[in-house]
């Protein structure tokens, strides 16, 4: 359970971080608290939107989904089941790939680093690691075979 608890806590942190960045985009929270100033450069760049949607909003939806799955996985009925952990790993894996793309943009296209984005990257990588550890804890999947099957 400790891995799933950790995943829920990290998802909640990621959700707050994304909500903060999205509120900034909506103009509700003033200037971003960011020591380097790179946050402004990244958040006001053309690449702060993906397929017409604010990247911060994608983060809000993604972390909210992860939180919901992690909390569902903590129910006694879900204990020992691989399904929730697989779903967590799949969602977090997608998040890691998307974060890798965004980090590439920061480093090689925008040439600025946003500390909040680095924080989110750390959270999503840790989430993926926890989901993978939980899957390992549960052992390999067993396939039920029909009686008489070869």
């Amino acid at each position, binding site marked *: *359970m400790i891995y799933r*608890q950790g995943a*829920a*806590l990290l998802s*909640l*942190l990621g*959700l*707050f971080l994304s*909500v*903060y960045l999205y*509120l*900034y*985009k*909506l*103009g*509700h*929270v*003033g*200037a971003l608290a960011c020591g380097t*100033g790179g946050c*402004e*450069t990244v*958040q*006001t*760049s*053309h690449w702060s939107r993906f397929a017409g949607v604010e990247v911060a909003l994608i983060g809000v939806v993604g972390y909210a989904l992860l939180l919901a799955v992690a909390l569902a996985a*903590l129910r*006694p009925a879900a204990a020992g089941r691989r399904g929730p952990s697989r779903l967590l790993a799949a969602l977090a894996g997608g998040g890691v790939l998307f974060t890798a793309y965004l980090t590439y943009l920061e480093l090689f296209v925008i040439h600025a680093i946003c500390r909040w984005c680095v924080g989110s990257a750390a959270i999503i990588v840790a989430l993926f690691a926890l989901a993978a550890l939980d899957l390992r804890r549960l052992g390999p999947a067993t396939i039920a075979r029909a009686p008489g099957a070869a």
Partner: protein
Amino acid sequence: MAAPPVGMKRFYVILGVVAALGIGLLGYLLSKPSTLSIPANVTVQPSDTAGFRGYVKGSDSATVEITEYADYQCPFCQTFATLQMPTIDERLIKTGRLRWRYRDFPLQQHAYARVAAHSAACADDQEKYWAQHDRIYEGQSEWSASRDGADIFRRYAGEIGLELGAYDACMSAGKYAGRIQASLDEGARAGVSSTPTLLVGGRLYQGRFDSDAITKLVDSLAPRITRAR
């Protein structure tokens, strides 16, 4: 229903504390009042208007000049800027027939009109006035209903490539408050009472305009002005 085990109880307490802290922090950030406002009714100094007669685009040799008095938060001005101006720009301004002069006329009932005008004025310092002007009008529905328009203008400033340190210094100093007030006073003296109002050859045109009407106006004025020269 069975009570959760002790480990889970402790986890839910921690989760609740983190949630409460996060919500509290976001609530604090949301409740912070806007720190930036551009003062109205400032005393206009001669230096505020020295050499400045509005933001101009178009050829110096254009036969017709139109001065537009507008308010960034006025919906008609927004429609005119986003739907009609591109055609006017292509058809009349870029062809050298018309020179356009934009003057600020922030109406009192519009909370962000003056800040928007000041934001564009600060963009002019970095020679990006029209880019910020267009961006502010494009985003009117976004910022006019927001809690802090100034932050959205700042984001636009970043998007159009302004150096934000200089932009922030310009905005927080209220560098162009006097210039905006002077423009408003001058418009009021000329008889402007609503926006957008066009001033063409000493005559005021108020209400809604479209690019065809402006083209007809320029077509009708150009021969007369040319003959008078």
